[in-house]
């Protein structure tokens, strides 16, 4: 993997949102970044290839697309942790799963193409693992702006 240089950092910092909706968007963005279109495209490709970026494009709002989204937590006995993680992750609706330092030690995001499917997925996970699943959907989002300083 290449080292990220100052130009890469500028790209990452500047292109966190508001990518142009015009016929030559890379050319337009490149002009703001004082580079040429070809270099911007090449650098974005490299940042993707190196795994610095997971993707470049639009991010969707689950509920406004008509889907369901929630954060769920479980208390998993340590000696069963790997096995339960496999059971949970086997569900395609589970998007992310993190082990965290707490009595509730497994936290995962569930996203589905319709709202009802959230409950069905959590119920299935509870039944398969024999563990209680705490459903913690967002009640309100506080907007944090666009940020991630590279």
């Amino acid at each position, binding site marked *: 993997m290449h080292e990220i240089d100052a130009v890469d950092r500028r790209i*990452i910092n500047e292109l966190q949102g508001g990518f142009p909706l015009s016929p030559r968007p890379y050319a337009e963005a490149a002009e703001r970044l004082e580079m040429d279109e070809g270099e911007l495209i090449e650098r974005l490709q490299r940042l993707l290839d190196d795994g610095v*970026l997971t993707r470049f494009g639009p*991010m969707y709002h689950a509920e406004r697309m008509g889907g369901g989204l929630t954060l769920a937590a479980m208390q998993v006995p340590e000696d069963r942790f790997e096995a339960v993680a496999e059971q949970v992750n086997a569900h395609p609706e589970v998007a992310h799963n993190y082990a965290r330092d707490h009595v509730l030690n497994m936290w995962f995001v569930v996203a589905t193409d319709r709202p009802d499917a959230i409950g069905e997925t959590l119920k299935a996970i509870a039944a398969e693992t024999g563990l209680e699943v705490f459903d913690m*959907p967002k009640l309100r989002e*506080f907007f944090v702006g666009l940020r991630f300083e*590279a």
Partner: protein
Amino acid sequence: MALNDKDRRLLHALQDGLPLVPRPYAAVAEAVGLSEADVVARLARLADEGVVKRFGVVVRHRELGYRANAMTVWDVPDEAVAATGRRLAELDFVTLCYRRPRRLPDWPYNLFAMIHGRDRASVLRLVEQATEVAGLAGHPRAILFSRRGFKQRGARYLGQPARPEPALAG
């Protein structure tokens, strides 16, 4: 606002990202059978409607040197949670901020903020700063560092993998 079939086709075609070619909207348009102008206009509308939350880079935090992240949670009285949440969200190191339901007696916390830092010590300093700035001193709190991530991939909204934001905390 309901998504129509053309919107869905377009969003589906873009869920792995925008093509890295000089005229990306023309490339997508061809793939889904729309015109370039229609693709651009639809994306502008979908952004206005909030279906597209953001359009740009999605970073892998760890690769940028943010090696520690803590989901930090507080128990805030319901009547104060909106004002407190807004203050937390203004801090530039808070990357996600939500109100969520308590699950008593197991889980008393209702305000969630994701805080990233270079390492644990810096995250802990930021948590203290957040506590002070948002007036959260004295409220019960927990700091849940991630030990590891097991699965980092897209979610499904359109019958096939898509990648939503809130990457970490739904």
